[in-house]
């Protein structure tokens, strides 16, 4: 009986001490974690919408969308975060759209688990810069092995066609969802 009480006492006190320590550490850390998250989002938004100065979360059910504004609080466009399946796993892309939904301002790849050295080339500037000022009407197309001839085409990376194609599809899908939503309003 004495043994049982001792066991319970030891386990309870260890549990309480550990819980207390963790609660205070987490109280200290949480503001920093929130700040890091916010900074990361902000950095990504201003990267794909260079003209933007302010942003506001756009209420959207299954996607992260932001409305962005310039100095005079005029709407300059949208920023969309969308994800889909790549070659080996999910790819998360953030991209900016002009106000009239005609062109992409820029894109960035937030998360990917593609093959190092091949699929990961989608995170390099050579690939991402192709999207700058790209026409998105009727939709983005991709070509293989030859330079793009139209304003709405990009060149897929040799050896990483699936990753390139997936990125294009994720962006097209995001644009369509946003268009549909804006039309409904």
């Amino acid at each position: 009986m004495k043994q049982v009480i001792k066991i319970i006492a030891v386990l309870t006190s260890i549990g309480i001490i550990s819980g207390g320590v963790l609660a205070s550490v987490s109280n200290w850390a949480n503001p920093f974690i929130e700040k890091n998250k916010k900074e990361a989002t902000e950095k990504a938004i201003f990267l794909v919408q260079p003209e933007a100065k302010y942003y506001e979360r756009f209420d959207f059910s299954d996607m992260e969308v932001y409305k962005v504004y310039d100095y005079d609080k005029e709407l300059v466009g949208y920023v969309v975060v969308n994800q889909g399946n790549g070659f080996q796993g999910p790819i998360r892309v953030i991209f900016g759209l002009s106000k009239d939904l005609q062109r992409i301002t820029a894109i960035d790849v937030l998360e990917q688990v593609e093959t190092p050295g091949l699929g990961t080339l989608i995170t390099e500037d050579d690939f991402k810069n192709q999207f700058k000022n790209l026409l998105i009407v009727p939709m983005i197309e991709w070509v293989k092995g030859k330079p793009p001839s139209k304003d709405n085409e990009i060149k897929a990376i040799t050896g990483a066609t699936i990753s390139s194609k997936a990125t294009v599809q994720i962006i097209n899908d995001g644009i369509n969802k946003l268009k549909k939503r804006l039309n409904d309003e």
Partner: protein
Amino acid sequence: MELIILFISAALINNFVLAYFLGICPFIGVSGKITSALSMGIAVTFVMTVTSIVSWLINYKILIPYNLTFLTIPSFILVIASLVQFVEMVIKKVSQPLYRALGIFLPLITTNCAILGLALFGAMREYSFIQNIIFALGAGSGFTLAIVLMAGIREELELANVPDAFRGAPITLIVAGILALAFMGFAGMI
């Protein structure tokens, strides 16, 4: 459709052992014979499935509503430890043959990082209840496949002339490396 992709991705493309290196200890320790490897695989799949259910409930019914996410790691590991004990007792009561087949592997599972990894991945990726179970089944089948394949190769290796210094863990790791290369062929299926 999405669930099938999730299953295949967890089982083959992002195989727990060969792509995430989770559950390496039993992978090296218990892969000597095909039969024991299969039992280990089944025991792990079983515990993974139960863990996925319980950890999801804890995460979404207790930790998140009461803002206790900083207790995720301690609570998951304690739940897994007690769950393994509980499963062991139930199996012992319900089916003696099953207990004899799986019994000795169950205690080893507590320190198997694949189980905790599964619970943490599930929480991190914000899977739904059903998705979480499918993810567990996929990860478990992937683990079973990898460990059984490994055991098959190691049974053959017994007869091979491996240099003395490479016997045991080193050659097992090298074979695992070649297996991991082979599994890369599954990428692109989704």
